[in-house]
């Protein structure tokens, strides 16, 4: 970001002066204030994501965040009440982004329930592999960092349960708790993977996890509405 600003400033300085001796334009680029402010906010959140993924929420200090984000301490406190608020913003951002992608993938996958579930799972695992720091703070740190972050984790879990329930075969007679148990089981496996530092290894588990999710519904779904268990 800083590099971009400087480049822009240099480019602007190199522009020919307006004819007629008009006033010099400011050498700083006139980026809208809101744009700069939101970029700074984003940098603070990203720094918190990286740092708490690297050393844990507990060990992350505001001073570290300020340094990593390259913002003034005052800017940080203008934007956030404190450390927990930044962490929650980071967790929320990752949850929203991953859920948006997963929901879009499910919707785009068409009418077959098993295709929708497969698309959703693959998209989620791909998100985790692409965003290892976000994966770590959501699937590991958030669980026990603070009481509020635990609650956010549970709320997010519930949204995945709802999503699976909506996309699984409807009225097929799977027990009411099936989606809850499945999401809890998958979260547990992913948690282990992320904790061992391998969000990309989670991707390798896609076929196993998919079977795990689909299988309980296949026995009770309409014949032919799903796919068979892979051999």
């Amino acid at each position: 970001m800083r590099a971009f600003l400087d480049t822009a400033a240099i480019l602007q300085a190199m522009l020919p002066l307006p004819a007629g001796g008009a006033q010099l334009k400011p050498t700083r680029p006139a980026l809208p204030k809101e744009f700069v402010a939101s970029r700074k906010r984003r940098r603070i959140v990203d720094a918190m994501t990286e740092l708490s993924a690297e050393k844990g929420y507990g060990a992350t200090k505001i001073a570290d965040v300020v340094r990593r984000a390259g913002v003034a301490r005052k800017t940080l406190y203008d934007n956030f009440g404190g450390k927990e608020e930044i962490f929650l913003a980071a967790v929320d951002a990752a949850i929203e982004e991953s859920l948006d992608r997963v929901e879009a993938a499910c919707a785009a996958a068409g009418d077959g329930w098993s295709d929708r579930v497969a698309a959703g799972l693959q998209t989620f695992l791909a998100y985790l592999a692409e965003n290892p720091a976000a994966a770590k703070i959501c699937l590991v740190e958030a669980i026990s960092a603070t009481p509020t972050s635990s609650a956010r984790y549970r709320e997010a879990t519930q949204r995945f349960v709802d999503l699976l329930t909506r996309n699984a075969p409807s009225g097929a007679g799977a027990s009411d708790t099936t989606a809850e148990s499945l999401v809890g089981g998958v979260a547990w496996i992913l948690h282990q993977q992320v904790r061992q530092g391998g969000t990309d290894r989670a991707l390798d588990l896609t076929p196993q996890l998919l079977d795990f999710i689909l299988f309980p519904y296949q026995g009770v779904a309409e014949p032919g509405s799903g796919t068979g268990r892979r051999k």
Partner: protein
Amino acid sequence: MERLPRGRHGLSPEFVAQNQRERLIAGLTGVLYEVGYQKTTVSLIGKRAAVSKSDFYKHFRSKDDCFFAAYEAAIERIRTQVVTACAGHEEAEWPLRVRGGISALLTFLAGDPAVASLSLVEGLRAGRGVYDRYQAAIESFIPNLRQGAPRAPDGARVPVATDEAVVGGIASLLGRRVLAGEAERIEELLPDVLEFALTPYLGTAEARRIISAG
């Protein structure tokens, strides 16, 4: 847990100390269930256990120290229930052993909501130190499920992650119910939990047959 008689009782100091320790652990478990971790204090634990504050500190360095001891004790009690129930069906086939273990688990948790809450809910939210214990506890149940588990109905090998996902999924479901204040009714989940545990190995139809054969 009953407090010991006052005055001269002829009980050995070791016995008294052990009894006090157990009362403190039970005290913390009960107080925690009622007021939550933040509001649980050493003096509340002492009052509940009928143990003086100074005696508390003979056993534990801090509230956290007592909490960890209580956590380990809770897991140990649950383990004992499950292992005993599984051992009771040692000669029986795998599905019956699993049913025995899960049934014992739910019955025990329903009968002691405070222990259920400590083990399945507090372990998740009271900070990293406890969470590691929660994780180790969950993992310790995996061999009970894995041992003797059959191949999938179509002959395919059940993936290795399945045992872990089943155990983790059960812990998650039970924790959600306990958190919702439904610990006493947790036994009602027996058919669901059994179906969830057996289906990956036996298929839905066979799992349901075993469950309905009760």
